[in-house]
């Protein structure tokens, strides 16, 4: 109760922060040498056969990325390609990527692979693997594992990432023990980026071919057997326990990385993942030092936690905008096959009716930033924003202008009724906005966007149903707040408006990511050309600018705000967390890149 009151008081603070843009924070931090420190260590109950690991050598994370609320249900499932699997250690503690991509700095880090080379015309790729990599059962990691995994996913349509792999892969073959060649069925210049690189939740985890190839149906194979030491992994952690409440991974002192001199062993000896849980519980556990890290907190709750535990830190050291910039900026999408959202003027009128500063201030308490385009402002992306600068002056996506909004609606034949809402032909324009029931960057925006629209004559309401995905896909939703995924170039986001996703009617099921049902043939042709270029190729920018002009004129999707995830990090037991001046990785511990957090943390004692 006290925590909720503090949270409410903090939320109603008379000192709101206003964020105009993200900025790199370079801050000199005076490091105090801790000579003597008393840290309360919770006694650990030790079961027979398990190593005793003190709390000070343990890292406990709660909430994952919001999934599996309440309890794990995949407690005996460690097949990285099975559906329903949670991000509770297999992807980030035990499985390693061929490459890792740091989305904050744009650095591509070779890990299990060393190099790649595309064939002429991007009809294939040759990948050279690192020597010395081993599975936890001592078997060497070779090209058989890579080829085996890709061929398995290519042919098994019930496995995760089948779609991604099957789109390009004809066959993967072992050239030699450390070289694999993938022949494509069509030109695929982005295969290494889309399929072979670990970034956020993307990238195919490799599986032990000597185990998976022996299974009749790999899609239902659990890859779990304590007696056999399964799951067999290459990463620095092994599974020691899995139950509905927690997954425990202990450090492997025989990790190939340390043996080969590639990387020091992580200092974190034990990782404990807890399932999804509500924000208040995570906040309480942080205050009580029961956990070291949790999924996103709202800014008021983060402040409340920090007020009661001064060991709490965040990406920006507890200062606005608090968290790290995630790859999923959000916008107000419309079913553009449904009248009157099929009219450009109406879409722009809606955009002019939204005061994004109010969305940031009242919806997020300053914990997000506005963005002109639905792209995250990472370094590699900035040239696309700069290239679009002239267009954005002509088409101001962030402008709040009720007069312009009204003018466009009147031009479209709308008038205001007796209650001040737009109507045309005697029929009021009424619509409902659908979004996630609990998401750090969409849910808080919904009520503020709705109020802005209502203030400017749009009879809008919002709902946060559990079946929000279904309502958006089926076309039942008139409008929805949804995110966009892009990291290095705009294709992943802007291809969502490609005609290949076009539906015949506003109520025909959409296919992801084509939720907007908008189509322009010229625009699509440009997207298809970008698709045939490598990621972030110099040729992408001019094509993008040309496509953007069409997109901005039509505005099929209304830009709202970034996704900044305020992830609390507890410095009671661990230090050297990722910060704005120490961006060795982003702090999304549920992502595949989470391993780099574990590898870099330093114990306080």
């Amino acid at each position, binding site marked *: 109760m006290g925590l909720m009151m503090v949270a409410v008081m903090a939320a109603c603070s008379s000192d709101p922060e206003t964020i105009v843009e993200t900025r790199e924070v370079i801050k000199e931090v005076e490091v105090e040498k801790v000579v003597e420190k008393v840290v309360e260590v919770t006694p650990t109950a030790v079961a027979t056969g398990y190593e005793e690991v003190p709390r000070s050598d343990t890292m406990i994370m709660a909430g994952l990325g919001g999934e599996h609320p*309440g309890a794990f*249900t995949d407690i005996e499932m460690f097949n990285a390609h099975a559906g329903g699997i949670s991000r509770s250690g297999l992807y980030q503690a035990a499985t390693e990527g061929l490459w890792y991509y740091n989305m904050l700095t744009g650095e591509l880090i070779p890990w299990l692979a060393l190099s790649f080379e595309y064939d002429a015309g991007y009809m294939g790729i040759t990948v050279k693997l690192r020597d010395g990599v081993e599975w936890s059962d001592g078997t060497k990691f070779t090209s058989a594992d890579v080829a085996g995994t890709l061929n398995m996913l290519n042919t098994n349509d*019930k496995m995760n990432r089948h779609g991604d792999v099957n789109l390009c892969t004809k066959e993967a073959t072992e050239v030699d023990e450390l070289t694999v060649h993938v022949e494509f069925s069509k030109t695929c210049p982005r295969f290494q980026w889309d399929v072979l690189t670990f970034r*956020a*939740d993307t990238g195919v985890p490799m599986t032990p071919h000597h185990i998976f190839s022996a299974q009749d149906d790999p899609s239902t194979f659990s890859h779990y057997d304590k007696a056999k030491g399964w799951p067999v992994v290459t990463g620095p952690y092994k599974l020691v326990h899995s139950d509905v409440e927690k997954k425990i991974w202990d450090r492997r002192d025989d990790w190939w990385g340390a043996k080969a001199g590639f990387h020091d062993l992580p200092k974190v000896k034990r990782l404990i993942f*807890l399932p999804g849980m509500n924000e208040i519980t995570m906040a309480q556990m942080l205050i009580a030092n029961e956990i070291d890290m949790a999924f996103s907190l709202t800014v008021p709750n983060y402040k409340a936690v920090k007020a009661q535990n001064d060991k709490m830190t965040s990406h920006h050291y507890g200062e606005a905008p608090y968290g790290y910039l995630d790859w999923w900026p959000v916008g107000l999408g419309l079913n553009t096959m449904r009248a009157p959202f099929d009219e450009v003027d109406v879409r722009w009128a809606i955009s002019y009716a939204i005061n994004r500063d109010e969305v940031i201030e009242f919806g997020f308490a300053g914990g997000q930033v506005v963005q002109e385009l639905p792209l995250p402002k990472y370094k590699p992306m900035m040239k696309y924003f700069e290239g679009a600068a002239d267009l954005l002056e002509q088409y101001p996506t962030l402008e709040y202008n009720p007069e312009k909004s009204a003018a466009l609606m009147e031009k479209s034949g709308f008038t205001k009724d007796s209650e001040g809402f737009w109507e045309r032909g005697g029929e009021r324009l009424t619509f409902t906005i659908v979004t996630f029931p609990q998401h750090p960057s969409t849910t808080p925006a919904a009520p503020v966007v709705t109020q802005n629209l209502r203030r400017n004559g749009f009879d809008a309401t919002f709902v946060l149903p559990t079946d929000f995905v279904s309502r958006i896909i089926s076309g039942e939703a008139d409008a929805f707040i949804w995110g966009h995924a892009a990291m290095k170039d705009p294709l992943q986001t802007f291809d969502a408006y490609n005609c290949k*996703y076009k539906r015949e009617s506003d109520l025909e099921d959409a296919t992801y*990511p084509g939720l907007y049902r908008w189509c322009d043939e010229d625009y699509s042709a440009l997207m298809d050309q970008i698709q045939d270029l490598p990621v972030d190729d110099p040729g992408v920018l001019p094509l993008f600018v040309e496509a953007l002009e069409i997109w901005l004129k039509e505005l099929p999707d209304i830009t709202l705000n970034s996704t900044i995830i305020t992830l609390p990090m507890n410095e009671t037991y661990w230090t050297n967390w990722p910060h704005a001046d120490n961006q060795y990785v982003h702090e999304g511990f549920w992502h595949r890149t989470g391993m780099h957090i574990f590898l870099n943390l330093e114990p306080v004692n």
Partner: protein
Amino acid sequence: MNKSYLVTRLVTFVIILWLASSVIFILPHLAPGRNPVRERIVQQASLGSGRVEGIEKMVAAFERDYGLDKPVWKQYFTYMGKLVRLDLGLSLALYPAKVIDLIMQALPWTIGLLGISTLLAFGFGSLAGALLAWPKSPGFIQWLFPPLMVMSAIPYFLLGIFLMTVFAFMLKWFPIGGGSSLTSVPDWSFTYIKQILHHAVLPGLAVVLSGIGFWALSMRGMMITVTGEDYVNFAEMRGLGSRRIFFQYAMRNAILPQVTALALALGFVVSGLVLVEWVFRYPGIGSLLFKAIAAFDYFLIYGVVFVLILGIALTTLFLDLIYPLLDPRIKYERE
């Protein structure tokens, strides 16, 4: 009890199960426009930019596997056939986890916590209610009446939040939720069992405190009726001890309707108390059902609800069969 009654009762049991199973099969299908397979795959794809062509193939493959591409009537008969063999199928949202495995993981936590809490609430509540109505009870017992009334009106999850805030967060006497310590590895040692009990105190207390009022008030009402009966007066006139009359004459007879209610309450224990499990992060079946509904996981919903129905049907059957033992006046023989 004669055989014909037993047979009739068993046949009724089977019919109830069949009817209930049919209803839970039909209801999700009445919800228009939802495709749980597509929803699940799109949600997965939205995490990591899945491709449209691939998604369609995956949806088709799963629909074939689950038989969802077949007509509804065929799905029904397949479902019934599997149910007879207690094959609850695979979860849609958590493929390829088996529904029965998911339920068996969650059930012990729910039965353990809520079963014991319900029995404790029943025991203490019935005793308190009986004492409230007994004229020879000590005077201080009457002071129990107002707080019992108040507690019976407070929802259990609100009580849970209050208990957690005071005893876990502020006083730090108990942990903030979970079924066991965060850092311990479960095994059946004394230390671990102690942890489970320690973690169960607050959620159990929330259930007990919120339920005790109900049992007390209903028992009080029945005791008031019984204490006025002739046989109780006769026992007093015969000079039998007060304690003997209280337990063997008054409470023994007043408790029969409570036992019926207890059987139903225990049947419902299987469903879990979703909000209690959510507040205390207890990994029980209530949480599982909530997840199944949110994900529109047909097969997990069928499985959990079927287990719930089975629980209630079995407890009422059991009660029907033991009633003659509890009350010799009840006979199932034809006259």
